[in-house]
């Protein structure tokens, strides 16, 4: 019939299904289902702006309006200092990672429930679902990145060599969102309450993270502030994009990394722990 392909070749490994049996091949399976991950992300991107008039412009519109509002409220009304950096650039450098985090967290945490029909009918490593949500958030991030470049051109304020470290902070922000998202999405499967927790968390979080202002303004609280993992990410972004003009607080970064690693490991543990019963509970 058809030429044999790699994946159709006989699998010599015997698969045993048993209660409570740890899946030895889980990570290998996850790798094997990477194409599904891509397809799910592609579906979500493709479908999101269907039947909208503005289409992908929505991805720019929201951060643009937030930028204007924050610049007005924090820069003009509250007259927060920004050093020699134009205030909109300061806000945008914070908004960029915050949008990434917020989009990744909210889509990852709703991801399992919105794919109920898949989870109850087909097997695949369930981690594929929240991972694909991250991919979608990353695409949005790149679009908002263009907005940042436009601002750079307007103020003629280009980043220097420090921008090379930006991917590391992007990764840190993604991992923080992923860790929290794993907890929330697995909990939402069992308790739909968590659907209401996420928007609230993000609404409060935007003020508890230094999005509209610089961390330099909260010297006495800085240590406590750092337990919000997004503080380290946003500070890192500003350091990379604004010539290091915003002071960099190393203990804060270490705390942020610590919190992120903790969220990620515990989130993975809880997700893997409850994953087997998703199809029965969802």
């Amino acid at each position, binding site marked *: 019939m058809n*030429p044999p392909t790699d994946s159709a070749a006989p699998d010599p490994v015997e698969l045993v*299904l048993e209660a409570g049996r740890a899946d030895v091949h889980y990570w290998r399976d996850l790798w094997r289902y990477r194409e599904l991950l891509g397809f799910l992300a592609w579906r979500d991107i493709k479908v999101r702006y*269907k039947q909208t008039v503005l289409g992908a412009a929505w991805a720019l519109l929201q951060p643009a309006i937030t930028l204007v509002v924050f610049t007005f409220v924090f820069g003009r009304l509250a007259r927060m200092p920004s050093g020699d950096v134009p205030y909109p650039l300061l806000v945008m450098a914070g908004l960029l990672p915050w949008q990434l985090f917020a989009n990744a967290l909210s889509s990852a945490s709703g991801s399992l429930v919105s794919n109920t029909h898949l989870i109850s009918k087909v097997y695949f490593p369930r981690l594929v679902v929240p991972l694909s949500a991250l991919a979608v958030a990353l695409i949005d991030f790149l679009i908002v990145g263009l907005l940042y470049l436009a601002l750079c051109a307007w103020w003629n304020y280009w980043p220097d060599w420090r921008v090379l470290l930006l991917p590391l902070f992007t990764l840190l922000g993604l991992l923080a969102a992923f860790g929290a998202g794993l907890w929330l999405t697995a909990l939402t499967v069992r308790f739909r309450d968590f659907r209401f927790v996420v928007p609230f968390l993000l609404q409060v979080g935007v003020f508890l993270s230094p999005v509209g202002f610089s961390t330099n303004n909260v010297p006495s609280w800085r240590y406590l502030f750092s337990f919000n993992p997004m503080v380290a990410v946003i500070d890192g972004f500003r350091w990379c994009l604004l010539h290091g003009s915003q002071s960099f607080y190393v203990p804060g970064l270490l705390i942020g990394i610590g919190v992120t690693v903790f969220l990620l490991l515990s989130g993975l543990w809880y997700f893997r722990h409850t994953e087997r019963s998703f199809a029965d509970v969802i």
Partner: protein
Amino acid sequence: MAEPVITVEGLGKRYLLAHQARHDTLRDTLAHGVRGLLRRERQNREEFWALRDVGFSVNQGDVVGIIGRNGAGKSTLLKILSRVTEPTTGRVRLRGRVASLLEVGTGFHPELSGRENIFLNGAILGMSRAEIRAKFDEIVAFAEVERFLDTPVKHYSSGMYVRLAFAVAAHLEPEILIVDEVLAVGDAAFQEKCLGRMNAISRTGRTILFVSHNIDALGSICQSGILLESGRIAACGGIQDVISGYHRPLSELSAQFPATGKPCITSVSIDAARLAAGDLVVRLAYESPVPLRPPVAGFILSTAEGRPLFGSNMRTHPPATPAAESRTGTCTWEVPSLALHSGNYSLTAWLGDKAEDFDHKPEAVSFPFVSRRHYPGRPPLHVIGPVDLPCRWTVSGH
């Protein structure tokens, strides 16, 4: 002989049925937990074994049909084999790549075009992008949707939708294919085509597990069969033997159904004494978390082969005292002096209200009927049919 590709030993799956409303919000769970601590009351939960001590093995290239009534555990078995859910007891050994088709068109997105859905659905069913690309033309030809490939599937007719969905699935080429009830869709010509495709797949030495209510289809595709009854294996062997076993337990005068937390039928029973006297009297008990305004029950009387003969519900034949709003209760249906010849019959039960269908139990109970009327020289039933209406002849001859 080769080693079996599927070995199932002592397989069981337990579900916990909460009899009170399910705790879907955290507050409910907390409130319930606190109450439980204070009063030391046991949680009101009932165990329900959807599968119990199921064991069998399947050799490479076998095509196995799984049959059983609704709720016999067929779908649970397929869900465990396809790794959607985990068994509670026992184990399954699978040798080879498994693909399962528990639903036609899993993951189809209405906004995406036919072309895009082929790739998405293929990936969900476990095909690689290269595999899908290689079979793309075949899939499109099989589904007969060439002209609409770039139309969003939300604009498809339901026939086109189902054809496309089945076409993707039919081109999966795993070592083990698990299929649930997919032949219940599409028109007769397309069903024929699907059966042909299944036959072709089985000839390439792949193992197929197949659930269907379509006994004819099972008989023509499968060599062996498994009959499940309330979660246990009732028969296992050659497909013809199993199918005849499926029709044999013809006298199940009553049936219980687990409560689902939604308005549902909990039992259906036939009065044996009245049946012996020639009258059909059936009771249907229902249970509902919310008051039904008012409950409407119905029955369809069919032959053992499943051909409907007569049906009635509380709207076509309203009870003398109208039904009141209620959460639980019993509806009784009486057919005095049943106008049927001796034979085997079954009843399908239905529960609804003014606007909605709640529950439906195909062939809920079955019974042998022995008519008290005797007709010497009566032609066989397959010639004259099972209905025995009172009638009279007059003749004028010279």
